[in-house]
């Protein structure tokens, strides 16, 4: 029997999150982002945050909401397009940006959670990403040394979760969430459906509850779609 990690909504979940902290936020684009926690971070009005997230949301959704309130001092991401306010703050120097290859970002989060302080990767060798980093050849191929990332708080979003913090993600909403869950000193999971411990099949759990310190069932998920691309049944020539 695991202790219950359930907290009463996003306000209780974000207890202790303070200005100046480093936060990880799961999601790719707007897919699988911790909507409810982001809403609470906006309400808290904390500032000078370092946010580790693959993307920075759009102007009026996701991390864009924190950017609008100028709560973020530094972003650590792989791709930050689709966000005018981001661009303005970055060009004006208000916002510091550390761009990292997507695979290195994912692996650095996993390393942070897995007690691996650093690893070698070929990604970014010979580019400005390699500036100041150790280069070493393995089997004749140059690699650069990348270090682990951790965070004071990690915010992840799952499809289903149980009271012990075990999580199951849906489809490509999984993305960065499992690694960030590992890398948070305190990891807060919001889920669409919270179920009792013992309900989930132990073979099917993506994030073991040991990585999760607080869990709550989110409300009113918008799950906004960034690029709605469809086939039209009438005009489809081949299906």
């Amino acid at each position, binding site marked *: 029997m695991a202790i219950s990690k359930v907290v009463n909504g996003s306000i209780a979940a974000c207890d202790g999150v303070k200005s100046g902290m480093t936060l990880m936020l799961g999601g790719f684009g707007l897919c699988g982002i911790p909507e409810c926690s982001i809403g609470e971070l906006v309400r808290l009005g904390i500032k000078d945050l370092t946010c580790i997230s693959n993307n920075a949301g759009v102007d009026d959704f996701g991390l864009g909401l924190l950017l609008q309130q100028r709560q973020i001092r530094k972003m650590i991401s792989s791709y930050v397009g689709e966000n005018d306010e981001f661009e303005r703050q970055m060009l004006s120097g208000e916002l510091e940006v550390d761009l990292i290859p997507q695979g290195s970002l994912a692996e650095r989060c996993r390393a942070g959670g897995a007690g691996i302080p650093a690893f070698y990767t070929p990604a970014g060798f010979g580019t400005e990403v390699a500036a100041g980093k150790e280069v070493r050849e393995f089997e004749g191929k140059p690699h650069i040394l990348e270090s682990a990332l951790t965070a004071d708080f990690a915010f992840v979003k799952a499809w289903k979760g149980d009271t012990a913090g075990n999580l199951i993600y849906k489809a490509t909403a999984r993305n960065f969430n499992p690694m960030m869950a590992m890398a948070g000193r305190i990891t807060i999971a919001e889920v669409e459906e919270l179920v009792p411990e013992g309900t989930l099949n132990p073979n099917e759990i993506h994030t073991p509850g040991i990585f999760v310190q607080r869990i709550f069932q989110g409300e009113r998920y918008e799950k906004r779609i960034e690029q709605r691309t*469809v086939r039209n049944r009438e005009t489809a020539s081949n299906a």
Partner: protein
Amino acid sequence: MLDKNGIAKRIAQEVRAGWYVNLGIGIPTLVANFIPEGMEVEFQSENGILGMGPFPWEGEEDADLINAGKQTITAMPGAVYFDSATSFAMIRGQHVQLTVLGAMEVAQNGDIANWKIPGKMVKGMGGAMDLVASAENIIVAMMHTNRAGESKMLPSCSLPLTGVGCVRRVVTNLAVLDIREGAFHLVERAPGVSVEEIAAATAGKLVIPDAVPEMRIN
């Protein structure tokens, strides 16, 4: 001369049954449309799916199912979802047989620049640096020249690099070119394009064999 679909059609001819293929945003995405019916190919999208299918029917979009371009997609039978660390494990570990991506510049030594223009807003490299640093088989899909008419096939890249010495083949609106031994080697001409036109549009060192067949695009 080829249009974007023509470039995609030509690249589709490079794909073999049983391959796992990663297609970048833009022209590369179109390649999926020209894989021969019945050829068993699986598309990887680096945000976390193998077995990516076409766009959903109107009204069947799922916010939890997107590709690396953040577009709503579908999953084919036999698809599988995974986290981003596993996704790039596939890429870095060379389990993906073909990567097709766009470029701003390609150099005769195989360097590629496709993520940053100094002085302009930098959006980030996304997964491009991981892809080019790892893939054994990288095809660049792009126009031979930029909008100002300047060659994108250069002696060396002027823009910040995405990867070094990694591009093996380039398919443009004008030609198919292989990169080896520090030069572009002309392999095929686009329909109706002369060797002279290709030479004029290629700033880097170009090796022209005695015979340069025209592409077969149906």
